[in-house]
C-alpha cells in the first residue's frame, strides 16, 4: 500500500500523473477544495456548485462508469452531509471518489443525472434516507420509505429504533 497523502497540495504534487488529478487540475484547480490519497484510494472534495462540471471533467479523463452515490452524516459537525461519488474507469482500471459537502441549513447538491443517468436511483436514495436534495433531478421523490414517512432514517440524529 502506498503512503498516504493527506491534503490538496500533497496530492497535487505527489501524484501529478494520476489521470483524475491531472484532469481536475487542467479543468479548474480552484474548484478542488481538498484531496487525499489514503488506503490507495483517491478522494477529491469539490466546491458544491462545481460538482456537475467536475463529473464531466473526470468523465473526460477516462472515468466512464458511475458506481455509486451515497452520503455520510457527520452530525453535529458542519457542513454535516458528505455526498460521495464513486467513479470507475474501465480503461484505467482504477476509481476516484468525489465528494461534496452540504450543510444542514440547506442540504442540496446539483444533480449529476445529466452526466450519468444511473445517478437517478442513487440520488433518490440519498434524498430519501438523508434528506439531501438534488437540484435538477427529474424525479426527486422517496424511493425506499413510504411517501408520507417523517424524517430521514440514516441521519445520525434519527434514533436506530425510530421515533416512538
Amino acid at each position, binding site marked *: *500500500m502506498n503512503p498516504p497523502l493527506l491534503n490538496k497540495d500533497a496530492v497535487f504534487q505527489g501524484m501529478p500523473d494520476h489521470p483524475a488529478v491531472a484532469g481536475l487540475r487542467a479543468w479548474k484547480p480552484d474548484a478542488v477544495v481538498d484531496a487525499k490519497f*489514503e*488506503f490507495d*484510494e483517491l*478522494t477529491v472534495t469539490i466546491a458544491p456548485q462545481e460538482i456537475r462540471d467536475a463529473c464531466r471533467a473526470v468523465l473526460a479523463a477516462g472515468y*466512464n*462508469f*458511475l*458506481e*455509486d452515490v*451515497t452520503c*455520510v*452524516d457527520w452530525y453535529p459537525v458542519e457542513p454535516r452531509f458528505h455526498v*460521495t461519488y*464513486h467513479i*470507475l474507469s*474501465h480503461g484505467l*482500471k*482504477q*476509481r476516484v*471518489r468525489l465528494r461534496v459537502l452540504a450543510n444542514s441549513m440547506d442540504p442540496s447538491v446539483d444533480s449529476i443525472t445529466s452526466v*450519468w*443517468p*444511473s445517478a*437517478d*436511483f*442513487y440520488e433518490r*436514495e440519498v434524498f430519501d*434516507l438523508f434528506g439531501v436534495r438534488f437540484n435538477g433531478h427529474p*424525479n426527486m*421523490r*422517496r*424511493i*425506499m*420509505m*413510504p*411517501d*408520507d414517512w417523517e424524517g430521514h*432514517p*440514516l441521519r445520525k440524529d*434519527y434514533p*436506530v429504533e425510530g421515533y416512538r
Partner: protein
Amino acid sequence: MADFLSTPILESRPDDPSQDRTMVLNMGPQHPSTHGVLRLVLEIDGETVNKVVPDIGFLHTGIEKTCEAKFYQQVVPLTDRIDYLSPMSNNLCYCLAVEKLLGLEIPARAQWTRVLLNELTRLNSHLVWLGTHAMDIGALTVFLYTFREREEILNIFELVAGQRMMTSYFRIGGLALEPPLDFHRRVQALIKILPEKIDEYLNLLTGNPIFYNRLKGVGYISGADAIALGVTGPPLRASGVDWDLRRDMPYSSYEKFQFEVPVSTDGDVWARYLVRLKEMRESVKICQQALDGMPEGPIKANAPKVVLPDREQMKTQMESLIYHFKIVTEGFAVPAGEVYQAIESPRGEMGYYVVSDGTAKPYRVHMRNPSFATLQALQTMCQGRMLADVVAVIGSIDIVLGEIDR
C-alpha cells in the same frame, strides 16, 4: 415505496379520457415473475409497453442503519440477509473492506477457500436464476433439474458453515472454522458432475424453439446505454463490455486463477442466458483450480486483537482468554478512514463503502448492490416491446429484491 397515485405515470395522464389510448397496469408486488416484491407500474398501448416505472422499498429493513449500531464483527451476519442467493459474496466484500482499513494480511489458504466458496455461490445463484428464468418462460422442468444440483451446493455450505443459506462463514481476518475433512471430497464430487449437468440444461433449453423465440432479440440494451444506466455483471458483458472485476481488479488472490470472461455483443435476453451459462462453466474451472492448488497454512490472520482465538487456546492460555473477552464485549477499534471495496458478485459489481471514525462500531456502511442499479435499465430494455417480454427481461437481469431494498 410510493403511494399508488403518486407514481409519475399517473400524473402525466391526459385530462380527457377519450383522448387516452393507453392503459396503466399494475404488476406486483405480489406477482410470481417479479422475483420477490417488485412492483412495476406499466403504461401500455394495447400489448405494447410504453413506460415501466419500478416501485421498490417493500423489503426495506434499514440494514445500513442497523450496521451503525453493531460492532464490526457483528455486521457480518447482517450482510447475508441482503442477498439470500449470494451470502458468501456479501460476507467477502464486507470482510475485505474492513480488512483493508485494518491493514490485515490474510493467509493464502483462507483466500483460496474464499475464492472456492465464492464460485460455488455463483453457481448456486446462477442455478436458481436459470431455474426460475426458464419457469417464467414456461419451461417448468428445468427448475427441478437445477434445484437438484443446488441442493448439493447448499449441503456443502451446511457442511462448512452449519447453515444452508445465511452462512456468515467469513470473518474479518479469515474464516470462521476449519473446513471439515469431508469438504474437499464433496466439492470434488460436485464439480465433477456439474459440466455434464450444464450440458443437460443446455439440451433442455438451447434447442427449444419456444425458449429461443421468447428470448432472442428481446430486451436489447447497447453497451453505451448499459454503462450510462449503471448495469454491471452478466448483463453488461452480454452487451459487449468486456469487464469483470475478478480479472480486471483482482481481490482475494483471483489473479492466481486462469479463467475466461464470456462476452457477447448481442445485448438481448438470449445473450445474457448464454453468458451466464458460460460463466457457470468458468466457475467450475475456478473451483477445480482452487481444489488442486489449495495452499497449506492457517485459516486466520495472525492478529489476536481482531481475530477470535481458537477454542483450545482460549482454555489453556491467559492472553487468549483476555483477547476473546475483549473482542466479544467491546469489539475492536478500526483506524479512522474510509474504503470502497468492490467484488464481482453473481449479479454484477457489489461494493461496500465502510467509513470508520476510529471506534469499534462502523460509522457508516453503504452497500452498492448490482440489482439496484440494473433495475434502472428496465425501461430501456422493455420500451416498445410486448407485455409478455417484460417477464423475460426481469428474469434475464436476475434481480434479488432483498438486495435492492436492503
